[in-house]
């Protein structure tokens, strides 16, 4: 039997909904585990991604830390997959893109009622937000995209099994969804 494929997953500016949907493949997870082993993923709490065959990322890029994690994945993964609306087009977090970041921070931390003496957090531990939220493919090269908000467990299963079988993944009617 050939070596198992090593897979890493993470969520950037996302809601973990895509990961929840991934778990919706239910008992097929066991079949999948015959084929793959997990590197960094919320499933196992590994903190950094090592060399992998496949990286799966949900969420868009909204701050400096997202950029670092995305670069780490790109460097280590032979194939990088963007999963879900946020990773593909910025999704919900990108709804702030027509607003000025400075005005957002001012409103949230300084001018809203009850925020007397508030200040904009500047702790170096905190990642700085980017002025716009970007889909993954605007920051690194992405090899595949699984659309949906979230994509269904069946869609994820179909996509991954196609890919593992060496086919160009196709979702087809009923599985391809942008919502």
């Amino acid at each position: 039997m050939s070596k198992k494929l090593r897979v890493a997953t993470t969520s950037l500016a996302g809601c973990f909904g895509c990961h929840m949907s991934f778990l919706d493949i239910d008992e097929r997870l066991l079949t999948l585990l015959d084929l793959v082993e997990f590197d960094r993923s919320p499933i196992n709490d590994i903190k950094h991604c090592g060399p992998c065959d496949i990286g799966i990322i949900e969420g868009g890029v909204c701050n400096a830390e997202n950029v670092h994690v995305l670069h780490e994945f790109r460097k280590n993964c032979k194939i990088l997959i963007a999963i879900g609306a946020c990773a593909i087009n910025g999704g919900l977090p990108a709804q702030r893109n027509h607003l000025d970041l400075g005005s957002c921070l001012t409103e949230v931390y300084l001018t809203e009622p009850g925020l007397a003496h508030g200040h904009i957090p500047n702790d170096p531990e905190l990642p700085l937000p980017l002025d716009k939220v970007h889909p993954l493919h605007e920051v690194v090269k992405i090899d595949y995209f699984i659309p949906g908000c979230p994509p269904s467990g069946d869609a994820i299963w179909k996509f991954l099994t196609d890919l593992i079988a060496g086919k160009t993944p196709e979702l087809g009617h009923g599985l391809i969804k942008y919502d």
Partner: protein
Amino acid sequence: MSDTFQLDGAAVPFEPGQTVMQAALAAGHYIPHLCYHPEFKPHGSCKLCTIKVNGRTTASCTMPAEAGLSVESDIEELNALRRTLVQMLFAEGNHFCPSCEKSGNCVLQALGYDLEVHATGFRHLYPDRPIDASHPDILLDFNRCVLCELCVRASSEVDGKNVFALAGRGITKHLIVNSESGLLKDTDIALTDKAMEVCPVGVILKKRVGFSQPIGERRYDQRPISAQALDDAPRQTGTGGSCAACEDPS
């Protein structure tokens, strides 16, 4: 027996005056399209329906059918082109399907599904297009406009009102409404207008009826657009009344 042309190897009969698109749909052959609507004069702007006629590319909705034409449509080269055009439209506007009440009934989305478009690919332009919620019963969300001009055409040709118009040029082109304030509430639009039904995406929306159809029962949940469009097609142009391609006005 009427004349025929060849479409992807099949003989397609046509009546004089029909375009390649009209003849193809009537004969049960689907050609992807977005700005074409069976009840309106062909527009030819979205270019989704681009075909190859005797080796030259042209829009099938405006191409008059002629005996003996050799037309190619369902070939990878053209489907790749159509995917790119769909991607361009997604990149141009702000299409956030998860929050759009037109999702599942949206032609642009359905085209993306049918053409197996997984992502926009291009850099998103994220234009700033404020919504117009001024009207008590109707919401305009310009973020989703694909500039097909169906509402412009419907309001002018069917409703006799000119509620909608285009302004700007090039990438700044956008939809406006006909009032001095620039707001929909100051126009003479009515819920019963044809212009209310024809938007293929989620720009023109009736308030308080969103998400009325559960997921799984929406128009393109059931059948892909390639199948739905054929049901809509045989209707004659200019007959008025309701059209299968339009949303149920009730």
